């Protein structure tokens, strides 16, 4: 067992922490609402090669592993950076595997196009509430028996209107019958389902990492607040009820982080448990991000409720981000069947 990051990974963390600190302060996050997308942040990420960082080097990518990817996603989550990196990485990885030689991948590796994934299968010709759907040029979706890449012409973002939403995310419906969409079949049948399932697991893993960043930042904000806010002659962090509740979310949070690391490691090492661990990390980080931001907001008193304080930005996203995958109870049931009654 080794819980340390390599020196390269530490450097990667530093680099992205610094990138997000410079490009994605909470003023930028606020300004990017309600769309939840900032062109400058995205450009910076494209310049670092982040969207294709896990694509094999031979294909023009960075050849990184998932432990590297979650480091970046954690830093993104800490800053709530308004850029669809999680979706882009997952979609780009998928294209790199399914269509390694095609122009599709080339367009993603070299340019600032955004690719994304429809987490649910297409129904009635529509991919509903696609994460990053409003700003993406490329959408990968499971359409019946086929895994399909839909491409739209470049243009000013948002390409597709994004409905106002709790997390200020660039979610949007894609109507897939339009004449302006170029349709490329990437795979069919069992292979299509396998690839989509894997991509969905990767999304869970990277979203778990983003949530971990969000969660830990929200805890830090709460801890700092209760240290500096005084009432009844003491910092409110003196009060035992506050201490114990923060200790509980801190403890569970460190555990959740270990689970995240284990899930990333399992993905990198081809572990048979990789999908299950991704689901576990995602479910647990979702729940804890909500609890942690709630506690932190509560201890802000009335300020927590104002748009002025940052904690509300975290609180809203903690609920909204994971909901992209739908009711967590359904995912939990899926996980339980996978763990305890696998179809052989």
């Amino acid at each position: 067992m080794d819980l340390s990051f390599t020196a390269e990974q530490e450097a990667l963390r530093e680099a992205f922490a610094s990138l997000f600190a410079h490009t994605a302060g909470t003023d930028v996050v606020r300004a990017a609402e309600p769309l939840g997308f900032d062109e400058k942040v995205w450009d910076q990420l494209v310049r670092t090669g982040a969207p294709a960082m896990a694509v094999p080097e031979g294909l023009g990518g960075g050849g990184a592993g998932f432990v590297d990817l979650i480091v970046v996603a954690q830093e993104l989550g800490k800053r709530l950076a308004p850029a669809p990196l999680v979706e882009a990485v997952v979609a780009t990885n998928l294209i790199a595997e399914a269509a390694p030689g095609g122009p599709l991948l080339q367009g993603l590796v070299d340019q600032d196009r955004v690719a994304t994934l429809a987490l649910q299968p297409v129904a009635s010709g529509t991919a509903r509430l696609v994460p990053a759907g409003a700003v993406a040029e490329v959408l990968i979706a499971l359409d019946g028996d086929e895994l399909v890449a839909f491409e739209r012409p470049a243009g000013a973002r948002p390409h597709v209107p994004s409905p106002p939403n709790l997390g200020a995310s660039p979610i949007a419906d894609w109507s897939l019958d339009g004449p302006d969409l170029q349709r490329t079949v990437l795979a069919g049948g069992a292979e299509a389902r396998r690839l989509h399932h894997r991509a969905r697991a990767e999304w869970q893993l990277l979203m778990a990492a983003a949530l971990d960043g969000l969660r830990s930042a929200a805890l830090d904000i709460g801890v700092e607040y209760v240290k500096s806010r005084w009432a009844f002659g003491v910092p409110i962090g003196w009060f035992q009820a506050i201490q114990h509740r923060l200790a509980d979310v801190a403890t569970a949070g460190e555990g959740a982080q270990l689970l995240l690391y284990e899930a990333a490691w399992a993905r990198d090492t081809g572990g048979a448990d990789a999908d299950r661990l991704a689901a576990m990390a995602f479910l647990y980080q979702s729940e804890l991000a909500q609890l942690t931001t709630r506690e932190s907001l509560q201890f802000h008193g009335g300020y927590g409720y104002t748009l002025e304080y940052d904690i509300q930005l975290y609180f809203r996203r903690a609920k909204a981000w994971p909901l992209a995958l739908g009711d967590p109870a359904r995912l939990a049931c899926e996980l339980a069947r996978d763990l305890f009654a696998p179809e052989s």
Partner: protein
Amino acid sequence: MDFTITDELADVRDEAVRWVAEHVDPEWADIQHRSGDYHTPELHQLLARDGWLGAGWPAEYGGRDRSPAQAAAIHQEIAALGIHEDGWSTTDMVCKTLLHVGTEEQKQRYISKALAGETVIVLGYTEPDSGSDVAAAKCRAERDGEDWVIHGQKMFTSTAHMATHVFLLTRTDFEAPKHAGLTLFMVPLDAPGVEIQPTHTVGGQRTNTTFYSEVRVPDDARIGEPGHGWDVMGVALVYERGGGGAGRTGPSLTDRVAGWCRGQITPEGTSLFDDPTVQQRLARIAIESEVARLLGLRVGWVAGQGGMPGVEGSMAKLYGSEAKQRHYSAMQDILGAEAVLTHGSPGAPLAGEVDTAFRYAIVGTIYGGTSEIQREIVAQRRLGLPRSRPKS
């Protein structure tokens, strides 16, 4: 033992419905939602004009010969349309306090204008550095001849930008123990030196930060004796809590979520409502909602028996506000990916009501005494546990 909820307003409900249908524009709910102003001056004027604000008040202070029951029914009908009357509720509360602690001259002056809709009074208690610890207020009022001069800042002065007066908690004695140096004033919001800045909230409401710089008020704007502000606030607080009455009830949000689930078909071809995890969550919400309702009703019952439902009020507020946060969050999970769509988003389930409720519920465990303060009240007054605050 009897849990029958008699609608004490049954006789007057029809008339109230008629008045509201004739005078109230249902669009005002949407306008409030968009603007974040939970006070509609047009409505306030209409209520004043027809005497509904003055219903039940003594005639000598501007009270009108109108049925208080019908007035209550009208307010309920307005609330049922989703229209808030925050300006009236703070005005009403301050006027009730004045009835108890104001001088005769003050009652004449303030109450009659309030009932006539000419003044709207808001609350200025909380400060940047005093939330739960309200008595730590530092906003300073100093005697200067016949006047008082006020310096300071207040947070969360909701509706201030549409009001005429603020009921302002100040410190007039910095030597006295914390609770003994406070005094309340009725400060005109158009007085020189008052500044109002908006603060926006997650729930969409606008509230305000108000600043007071060399604001001069005459001594007759002082409510209660100098240094007795804590007791005056105590009178007002009784009116701030209190349980819900019968009110108008339609299908609850839980019912509507359940109905929505019944209509959703899952990929497996069954109704979403058939999912036992959905059922289990809805059962829990139903149970806890009923418990919250009963704790609320009890407050009214205790008060009706002549009791002071202090701890009961804390319990109802604590339980209800915490339960609501859990419930709306669980409802969002049940609604799934579409739950994030806000009021007005195309395709938002139940027109985004769950999202609205979720956002609004955040503040429920904070305002009017945080859950932490309520737990302390329950622990100490109900269970007799020792006071655990640091001495200050």
